[in-house]
């Protein structure tokens, strides 16, 4: 039975609308909405689609630069990669579905981000993912880790796009809300970028891809609510992925675009047919009329409401140039996909849907998009973190034991168990594989160039100081790509926060935006695309602010990329940069209780910029044999990690450091880099010339990690022994059997 107005407050609430928003909707329409219209407003005005709590703040991000071809607002950002090529990339969250159903939730997250990229006319050449799980011993963690990794692998492997890198860590704040952020990058000719615009009055609109089913209805609304008891019952709102169809859709779409048949194109992602139609019409200032009864359907008895809100996967909406319809049909059918003309572009400025001739939706596009609610929600300034007195530091009995314990934490431990399940070599372009360097490097087809990518965010820093923490995520990801030898050029972000309706959360969001903006401005890496995921909380417990940063960087010669491991004996190990080591929020502090104490690392984007410039100059001069940035676990962990790849040990003297011993070894000095070089004098001279502190700590060689401070040997451990602990960390987590 179709409900008819007036709607009860309960029905309005179930559509994620407040009483005020519903009143505004009626005022805009001048009448009560039809049932399908109520569904359309419900998704278009959701936090997920409308960014209603975040828009006022996102405006503060730097989004322009000489290399930017397309900034935020389209399906993905586009940056000039030189020689007429462009890289197209974006990162997006699939947190809520992945917590409810990890395998399909993560898989469809990969599918969605791929569509955002190839929708722009770019062939996807790389995937990365940033994962945040609850504490390792939480009973649900093994199930979630295995499901998410299996889902990402199952999808990416089948579509034939290599998953070349990523980041995974564990913290109790994600016990009830894991994060699955997927990043995709593609390449296109810079003058052949396709936009999501419904251009050209009278042009036919084609539906291409999988049939529409009842899966995922109200997914966007679900992603705009916090979890509570009974979230499991929301499993039907999670979509099911079919990577085989996605692979066909990639090939068919790129072929259609290559034949110049399209006036506009957009994938059907969150809020499905509704949002792809309305966003395309809104960007072009046009209108659309859709014949919903023509949409290919998977099930019988589907209603207009369901068709408009379904989030069935692997579907595209293509606006064909008039007169080219037969060519489009021929290509799509050759790939064995469903295709149907479902509507036309109009100049009415209205989104109109008919069902067997009857108008069931007729609303102004502007009301759905431009008039969507936009809130400057109340916020409380985050409290300033307080320094941790040396006297309050927990005691450290055995630095070697602590080093081993840090390497054995799943956050620092090897991620091989994960990336071994991802095909990271398909397309034969992977130059730096996962685990081999600080960033993934993939060659750009038909050129000598390489593109480096890294995803990063330390949420403990953000919990202590969201401004510094968010900026540090930018700094660290920029250092990662500089370590392999690439110049950072642009950023995509995925801003994961708790409920925006809590002023303290909104305060952290605003501060994080300012931190990202400051760091991106200093590094000249504009934000060209991104995504906001709010309401990451369960029963009132929110996640730490987690503004994930995806950094994209370019290098002239992909063959010049270097890894993070010491390649041979007899090299000089030099630490570049003078960022002070910080124990606030450190993994070491977490070994001894609550890590959320003290000051996080200092954010100094200008200093980081100097280090990056020096590092790239050293790369250009051929002085870098390996490079690895100091991050979680501090300098001692960074040194140990450098020994694992090739089994080449190190003897380091850290006497020149400052502060108490735990800080010197395990303080997280974000902004410093461990470089191995064959020409110590040249590297030190180069650093001095560029005004960057450089500090020789010792030679590579042997099969032990030896660290000396003030003539005291504080660490002396076998490389093989440390590596075994580091490699066992993640398998130990997933070996535990937990309940579903």
């Amino acid at each position: 039975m179709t409900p008819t107005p007036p709607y009860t407050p309960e029905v309005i609430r179930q559509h994620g609308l407040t009483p005020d928003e519903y009143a505004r909707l009626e005022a805009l329409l001048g009448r009560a909405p039809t049932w399908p219209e109520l569904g359309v407003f419900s998704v278009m005005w959701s936090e997920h689609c409308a960014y209603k709590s975040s828009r006022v703040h996102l405006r503060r991000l730097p989004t322009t630069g000489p290399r930017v071809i397309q900034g935020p607002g389209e399906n993905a950002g586009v940056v000039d990669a030189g020689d007429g090529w462009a890289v197209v990339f974006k990162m997006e969250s699939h947190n809520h579905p992945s917590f409810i159903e990890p395998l399909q939730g993560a898989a469809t997250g990969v599918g969605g981000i791929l569509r955002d990229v190839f929708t722009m006319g770019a062939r996807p050449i790389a995937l990365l993912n940033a994962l945040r799980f609850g504490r390792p011993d939480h009973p649900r963690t093994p199930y979630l880790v295995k499901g998410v990794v299996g889902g990402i692998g199952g999808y990416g492997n089948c579509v034939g796009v290599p998953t070349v890198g990523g980041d995974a860590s564990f913290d109790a704040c994600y016990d009830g809300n894991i994060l699955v952020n997927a990043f995709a990058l593609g390449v296109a000719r810079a003058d052949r970028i396709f936009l999501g615009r419904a251009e050209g009055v009278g042009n036919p609109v084609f539906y291409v891809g999988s049939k529409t089913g009842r899966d995922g209805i109200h997914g966007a609304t679900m992603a705009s609510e916090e979890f509570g008891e009974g979230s499991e019952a929301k499993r039907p709102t999670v979509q099911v992925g079919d990577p085989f169809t996605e692979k066909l859709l990639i090939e068919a779409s790129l072929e259609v675009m290559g034949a110049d048949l399209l006036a506009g194109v957009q994938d059907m992602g969150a809020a499905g047919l509704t949002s792809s139609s309305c966003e395309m019409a809104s960007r072009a200032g046009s209108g659309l009329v859709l014949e919903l009864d023509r949409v290919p359907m998977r099930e019988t008895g589907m209603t207009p409401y369901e068709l408009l809100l379904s989030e069935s996967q692997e579907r595209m909406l293509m606006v064909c140039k008039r007169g080219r319809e037969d060519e489009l049909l021929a290509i799509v059918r050759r790939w064995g996909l469903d295709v149907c003309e479902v509507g036309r572009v109009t100049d009415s400025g209205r989104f109109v849907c008919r069902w067997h001739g009857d108008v069931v939706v007729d609303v102004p596009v502007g009301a759905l998009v431009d008039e969507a609610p936009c809130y400057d929600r109340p916020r409380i300034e985050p409290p300033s973190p307080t320094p941790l007195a040396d006297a309050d530091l927990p005691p450290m009995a055995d630095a070697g034991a602590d080093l081993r314990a840090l390497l054995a934490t799943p956050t620092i431990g090897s991620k091989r168990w994960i990336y071994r399940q991802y095909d990271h070599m398909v397309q034969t372009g992977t130059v730096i594989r996962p685990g081999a360097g600080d960033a993934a490097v993939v060659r750009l087809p038909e050129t000598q160039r390489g593109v480096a990518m890294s995803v990063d965010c330390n949420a403990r820093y953000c919990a202590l100081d969201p401004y510094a923490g968010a900026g540090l995520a930018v700094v660290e990801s920029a250092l990662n790509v500089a370590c392999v030898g690439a110049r950072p050029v642009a950023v995509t972000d995925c801003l994961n926060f708790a409920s925006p309706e809590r002023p303290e959360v909104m305060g952290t969001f605003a501060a994080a935006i300012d931190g990202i903006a400051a760091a991106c401005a200093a590094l000249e890496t504009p934000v060209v695309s991104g995504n906001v995921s709010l309401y990451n909380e369960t029963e009132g417990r929110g996640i730490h602010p987690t503004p994930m940063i995806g950094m994209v960087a370019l290098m002239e010669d992909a063959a010049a990329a270097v890894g993070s491991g010491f390649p041979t004996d007899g090299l000089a190990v030099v630490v570049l940069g003078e960022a002070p080591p910080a124990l606030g929020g450190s993994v070491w502090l977490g070994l001894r209780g609550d890590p959320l104490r003290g000051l996080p690392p200092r954010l100094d984007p200008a200093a980081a910029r100097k280090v990056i410039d020096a590092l790239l100059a050293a790369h250009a001069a051929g002085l870098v044999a390996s490079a690895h940035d100091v991050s979680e676990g501090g300098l001692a962990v960074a040194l140990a990690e450098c020994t694992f790849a090739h089994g080449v040990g190190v003897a380091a003297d850290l006497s020149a450091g400052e502060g108490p011993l735990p800080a010197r070894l395990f303080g997280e000095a974000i902004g410093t880099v461990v470089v191995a070089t064959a020409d110590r004098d040249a590297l030190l001279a180069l650093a001095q010339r560029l005004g960057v502190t450089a500090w020789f700590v010792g030679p590579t060689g042997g099969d032990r990690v030896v660290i000396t401070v003030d003539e005291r040997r504080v660490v002396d451990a076998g490389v093989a022994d440390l590596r075994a602990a580091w490699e066992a960390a993640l398998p130990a987590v997933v070996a535990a059997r937990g309940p579903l």
Partner: protein
Amino acid sequence: MRFTVVSFPGSNCDHDCVRVVEEVLGEQAALVRHTADDLDRPDVVLLPGGFSYGDYLRCGAIAARAPVMAAVRRFAEGGGPVLGICNGFQVLTECGLLPGALGRNAGLDFVCDDVWLTVEGRATPFTRGVRRDAPLRVPVAHHDGCYFADDATLARLEGEGQVVFRYVDAAGRSDATANPNGSRANIAGICNAAGNVVGMMPHPERCAEPLLGGVDGRLLFDAVRGVLS
């Protein structure tokens, strides 16, 4: 010399094979679709990796019945060199051009990693002259690479020199720790009785350029080029 690469819906290493042929070997490549009834004048046929038809039903099962396979069979039965890589190996077992079957990895997870292989058995077009004194390093990337054949078939394969690649460690030892997927007798690749049809799970096309961290895979392509020219 002309290499035909067969492309099924869901093949995703077809372009990687074309790339090696054209850009590494400097030879001609033809990409032929699953519906073709002709292989476009091949000297060599490559069945590439990927997830043909989504791996639905069983890996390679639907591709084995695709129209183009009639032409592949004719070419193979005429003695033409055919190499099936990964999913291509699965297709060759499913269509009966090679014995045995490939099942789910013993560890149940997808495995993407470098492995070491010894070259042994008869001199196939893809292994003639390839070094046998030291193992090759070649990547694998598969979920269903566990080679199975019954005892009689296995004995015949070993006896007739039809086991052409075996998983070993870097030192050349063939044992359980060197086996990435639980294959019987560490088998990574086999050939047919005539020796012209070869199937292997590892991906030689992924290690044919120094930029990608290895060049041992190139040896197989060079071998077939040497045999035919």
